[in-house]
Structures are given as C-alpha cells and as structure tokens.
C-alpha cells in the first residue's frame, strides 16, 4: 500500500506562496538565500522529500513547497523560539523577584517591628549628640569628690573646661593615668601576694568549716562532701546518650 503523507501544510503554504510570489526577487535580494536552497520553490520540495519518501516515490510528484512558505515557516519557528526565550526570561525574572521578596520578608521577621526601630533610630541620633557630654558627666559624677587636683593639672583642666562647650568635661592626661594604674596594679598584686600568695599557710573554706566536724563526738562528714564539678562532660554525654536510647527504644517498641 502506498502510504500517503499528510500534506496539511500545503494549503496555507500555497496561500502565502501566492502572496509572497509577488516579491520573491526583492526578498531574496534583501535576505539573500535564507534557506540555502535553490531559488525555485518547486525544486525545493523534492530535496525535502528525498530523505524519507524513498519507498513510495516515483509515482507521485514532489510536493509543492514554495520558498516563501518555507521562509514563513522558518520565521514562525524563529518567532516561537523568541517567544519561548522571552517567556523563559520573564519566568526567571519572576522567580528571582519572588525569591527576593521572600528574603526580605524573612529579614523583616527577624528584626523588631517598625515602630520600635523608628524609636530607636531617633533616640540614637539624639543620644549620639548627647553622649560625649553624658560620658564625661558619668565620670565626673563617679568621682565627684575630686573637685580639685594638684596644682598644674588643675589649671590645665580649668582652661579646658572654660573652652569646651559642655561644662561637664574632666580632662585627664592619659600618660599619667597609665602610670597610676600600673602602680595601683603593682600595689594590689603585692598585698594579694603577701597575704594569699605562695608561702602563706592558707586553707580552703571547705576544710576550715569541716575541721569542727572532725572533732565532734559523733564525727560528721565535711561541709562540702561532694565535688559537683567532677566529670561534667562525661555526665552531659551520658545524659544525651540516655535520651537518644530512650527514643530509640520507644520507636522499636511501637513497631
């Protein structure tokens, strides 16, 4: 049996071919040979058909597929490709947009509500202006008994105080402060060392409180008998293991 290929595309192709035939030369001249086929549309068909219609050839004439129709098909194909590309792009864009919005929402959820943020920002702005004054005020309040220091530094400070805008500054030379701090540290270390350092005969509070218990007629245990700080890591691991084992046991018993 001869199998006839469906020639569905023939009718519109011929219609467009009729339209296009009016200006085939000009199109060709513009686009050049779009399809790389010989100019006559009639000759184009047998080349297409040759590949697959080998069985039932020779009885039928090759199909009439004009160049114009093929061109139109090609253009349609192009358009389709373009359309798909555009659709893809828009899809991607939409996806990206949605993802962005999701991120923004998540971030918003993490932060405090707007009202509180606004309050904070306005407050921090005013605070920034006031904070240098406040800090100095704090220092001066803490050491408010030091209204006068030695001769030189007093004069320097007074000058600075009169120059500055905020009257609550207390100027101090940093070099002096370091020296003073290091000497104070040395003094504290000395007294700590001499009272509680090596060579002194000190005992722990636990032993001290337990000494009485040892001399009682009915001997009692030490004041702090247990050492709760022993093996904390081991105890934690054991607890975690126990929990997991229980969960596993429940699961297997349910099954």
């Amino acid at each position, binding site marked *: 049996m001869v199998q006839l290929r469906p020639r569905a595309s023939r009718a519109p192709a011929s219609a467009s071919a009729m339209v296009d035939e009016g200006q085939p030369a000009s199109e060709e001249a513009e686009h050049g040979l779009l399809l790389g086929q010989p100019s006559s549309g009639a000759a184009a068909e047998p080349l297409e058909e040759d590949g697959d219609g080998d069985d039932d050839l020779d009885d039928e004439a090759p199909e009439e597929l004009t160049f114009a129709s093929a061109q139109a098909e090609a253009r349609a194909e192009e358009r389709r490709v373009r359309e798909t590309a555009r659709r893809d792009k828009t899809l991607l864009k939409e996806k990206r947009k949605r993802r962005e919005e999701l991120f923004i929402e998540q971030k918003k959820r993490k932060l405090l509500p707007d009202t509180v943020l606004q309050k904070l920002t306005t407050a921090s702005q005013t605070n920034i202006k006031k904070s240098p004054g*406040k800090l100095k*005020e*704090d220092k001066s*309040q*803490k*050491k*408010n*008994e*030091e*209204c*006068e*220091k*030695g001769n030189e530094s007093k004069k320097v400070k007074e000058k600075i105080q009169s120059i500055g805008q905020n009257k609550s500054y207390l100027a101090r030379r940093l070099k002096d402060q370091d020296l*003073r701090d290091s*000497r*104070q540290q*040395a*003094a*504290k270390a*000395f007294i700590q060392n*001499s*009272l*509680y350092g090596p*060579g*002194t*005969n*000190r*005992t*722990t*509070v636990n*032993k*001290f*409180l337990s*000494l009485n218990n*040892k*001399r009682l007629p009915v001997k009692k245990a030490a*004041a702090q008998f247990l050492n709760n700080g022993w093996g904390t890591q081991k105890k934690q691991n054991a607890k975690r293991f126990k929990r997991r084992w229980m969960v596993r046991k429940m699961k297997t018993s349910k099954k």
Partner: protein
Amino acid sequence: MGEFKVHRVRFFNYVPSGIRCVAYNNQSNRLAVSRTDGTVEIYNLSANYFQEKFFPGHESRATEALCWAKGQRLFSAGLNGEIIEYDLQALDIKYSMDAFGGPIWSMAASPSGSQLLVGCEDGSVKLFQINPDKIQFERNFDRQKSRILSLSWHPSGTHIAAGSIDYISVFDIKSGSAVHKMLVDRQYMGVSKRKCIIWGVAFLSDGTVISVDSAGKVQFWDSATGTLVKTHLVANADVQSIAVSDQEDSFVVGTAEGTVFHFQLVSVTSNSSEKQWVRTKPFQHHTHDVRTVAHSPTALISGGTDTHLVIRPLMEKVEVKNYDAALRKITFPHRRLISCSKKRQLLLFQFSHHLDLWRLGSTVATGKHGDTLPLSKDADHLLQLKTKVSKMPACLRSAVQIMFSEDSTKLFVASNQGSLHILRLLEGSFKHLHTFQAQSGTVESMCLLAVSPDGNWLAASGTSAGVHVYSVKRLKLHCTVPAYNFPVTALAIAPKTNNLVIAHSDQQIFEYSIPDKQYTEWSRAIQKQGFHHHWLQRDTPITHIGFHPKRPAHILLHDAYMFCIIDKSLPLPNDKTLLYNPLPPTNESDVIRRRTAHAFKISKKYKPLLFMDLLDEGTLVAVERPLDDIIAQLPPPIKKKKFGT
C-alpha cells in the same frame, strides 16, 4: 496572735565586705570603720553601738588607712593615691586630694591633730598641714627604698617611726631625715625566703618603738640607740595590726589567725617600780585575719576579713559591771536592706551596687503548727537593676533616703542637705511638687522616712531636733516629736489610727499619735513602768516595724535574733515575769496561762533575721541569712593544725 504561714526566704545573697580599718575618736566616743569595698561607717559607741552614719563606697576608693584629726574630721587614704575628707554633716565626701606618691599605704594624724603624715608606695613620707577648709602639702621626708606600710608619731610630735619591708626607720620631724634604720629578722631565730613585712608600728613616749610583722613577732626597739630590746613570738602567721591605749599601759595586737592579744605593762614584782610588758589575754573571736584593732579607754575593738566588728570591754576598766561590759559582735547591718510589696508578693533586695527583685514562691499544701510545707511554685528571680546615670534634677542627685507613697503616685526624697522633696510620678517623668526645707538641728544619723498608708502624713527622723511630722495634704510641718538622746532605728505609721511608732537604739519604743499631737496612753504606761530588763539588754537594733491590717492593737517588730508582736490590749510585763515565754503546755490551767500572758510575744525561731513583715492576714515573710552562708563566701583563712585531725 493567730496562726500564720511563714515564707522562709534564704535566697538573699547578702555578703558584707571585710573590715579594713578602724579608727576610734575619744572625744565623741565614735568609731569609724572602713571596709574593703570603700564603705565607711560611723558607729556611736555610747548609743548602744548603733551605726549612725554610712558613706557608700566604691572599689576605686578602697581605703588602706583611716584616721581622725582635730575637730572631728575624718580622713581616709587608699591605693588610688588620694586622701579623702568626709563631711559628717552632709554625709558626703568633701574633697579628695592626690598625694602624688603613688598608692598610699598608711596615714597618721599628729598628736596635736593639726598635721597629717602619709606613707606612700614609692617610699616617701609626706607631711600635710590640716587647714580649716582643706589639707595642704608641706614637705617630703627622705625617700626610702621600699614602700612605707605603717606610720606612728611620737606623742610629743618630734619623731616618727615608719615600718617598711625588712626594716623600720625613725625620722626626725625637723630635719626630715632618717635618724635610725632598724633591720628586722625575716624569721625568728632562722632564715626565711619571704620578706618580712612590718604591718604595724607604735611609738611610745619613752622612746620605745613596738613593731608587728609578718613573721608573727612583736618586737620592742629602743629608738635612741636603734637596737632591739625584746621579741615576743606570738603567732605562726602574720601579726597584722597594733593599737596602743592613751595611757600607754596596754596595747592590743591582732593576728592573721583571728586571735587578738592584749599586752599590759605590769610591775615585775608586786612592790617594785620596774615594769615590763607581758602578754596577758588572748581572745579568739574571729575566724579570719584581724586586719585592724583599736584601743578605747575601756574596750578593745577588732575587725577583719570575717566582717564582724568585735568590741570587747575590758573588765578592769569598766566601772559598772552590768550588761554593758559584755562582748558585742556586730555582724548584720543596722538598717533595712529589704522592701516588700504585700499585694504582689515581691521582695526587693538592696545590694551595694545593684538591686534584685524576686517573687515569692507559693504553696497549696496545709499543715499543722511546726510543719514545713513543700513549695508548689518556686521563688522567681525577676529582675536585676544595676546603677546607671540618667537625667535627674539637681535636688535628687544626693538622696539619702527614698520612699514611695502607698498608692505609688508620689515619691518622697530626703536629700543630704536635710531638705525633703515631694515629687509626683507621672508616666515616664516626674513633677516636683514641694520641698520642705531643712529644720534646725545638726544631722545626727541617717534619715529615716515613714509614710502613712492613707497618704496624709510623712515622718522624717535623723536630726537632733527630733522626728518631724509633715502633712502631705497641706504641705507644711504638722508637729515634732520631742527629741530623744538616742538615734532612731526604725519608724512606721499605723494604718487606721495614724500612730507613729518609733524605735530607738537603746531599745525604747515610743508611740505618738499624729492627729492628737501627743504620746498615746499605751506609750505613757510603758514608759512609766519601764521595759523589761531582758528587752533592754538586746544587742541588735530594731530595723523594721509592721502592722496588722485588721488588728490595730498589734505591732510587729523584729531585730536580728528575734521577732516580737506587741499586743497593746494585754498587760505589760514587769521585771519579775519571764519575758520570753513560748506557748505554755495546754494542760496548764487557764488561770496560770492568763497570769503569765503579757503583751510581748517573742519568737526566736527564725534567726538570724534580716527582715520580717506581715504579707496579709495569714502570712508572714521572714528573710534569714545563716552565718555559714556568709562564711562560705569569704577569702581563705589561715590553716590551723588541730590535734586529732
């Protein structure tokens, strides 16, 4: 009295700081005590050893030396290198002056009281002149090699003994140079690697210098020749402090083991004129280092790392042998550190640098008398507030006492200048309503405030003029309770009757009716009869007074070792009856029970008590602080070897 459920609270983690220096003032019989956190407290020894004044401290102002100068002026010096003068009237610090010698280790006022000597870290001894308004640097003495840890003036004011590390120097005031340098053995009859630190020196008028050092020795030196006269080996640990009496016939030393030794000048034989120093009495009242001692004409005073202040009157010096000659040990504060909100069942704890807010636990169980009920809901730590500097009006900057009105709309503030301010509290701000100016009279003790529950009356104590009562509605002074010569320890106004109940440091209680402007009948009756002698012999002052909302005849008081409900409708006890009589057995006849029942119902079940109050009709809250809990948080003591351990 009724049955009460009692909340026993032990989660107030109150740890007082150790005592660092003690200074005794002879003219006013007052004791200044400074602690390691910089707090300075003034105790009035004649007013039943009551803590009158109190300067809150800061770690940067930790003191190493404290001394009184002429005219009741108090000076302290510390490791931050500054000399601070305290204003005892304004309860504030007058000024602080930098000595420019580094950390200051010791300070001594001259016998005349007009000069101040300071020993510094860099080995210099500086002389300051005490002017009426300030102190002024006069000159430096010869600089020594190591830090000057102790100083002492000769009673005539011509020489100074300065103890340092491994040696003692004797200076001449006029020339300012070291006359003698006496080297101290590092260890008694032996060699030791640790340096010998001279913790204390004392200069007697016959030229003897007494030194105590870290090897446990008390040594007597002759300052004219610069030689060692006698050595007493007193302890195995450091001997950290020394104080000589004014008559120079006895002195006291304190050791790191907690022992205090009393040395006296006794004649060699009963009828010879030759005298020698003999170690007479050891006292073991402390468990940790005794870092400071003082010698008053009749008592030995010691204080140390275990935070107790121990005053031991000497029996041979005390004229009248009554309860005044007993040992006094001051451990707990003499003011109220806890406030309670009755409706919400909240407790506010006051620490030195922060406040804690707790909610009380609750229980649904019931039981009989003496049962301990299990808690169904534990106590909650709600809030911890640290100190913060914020905008405050100038009048509130130096507030001594603050109290809220019963409905929490008004705030009453007592400032340290003696004036009282009333502020109205609004949402987030406050409006200054009125100021009551300072009345006449000097500031004698810390101001206490009391507000009546209906909000009409405000009572303020603290001045020598008596307790002032102000009318809040009309904003003027209503009346003044007549002055009493002992300071007020607690103040409260009863709910319906508006009776002001005042407790003084000599354990007297007065009840004054504010609307009638006179003492009540009950108060007159008990003053006429006098309190029971056991009541008057209590050691610790009453720090809080509470009332029962439904029973106006009941007053609830407590001190550190007992709490008492006074029932004004019952007869008063006289000296012959037993003051502390717990519930008699029920098989006693009713007649006996009626005969022995008296107005003072005392219970010693909860001690040591820091606070006790009535929450509502059937519940009490008692905040206890066991001594062992305090000891558990102190620095380590010296090891003592006991036989059998």
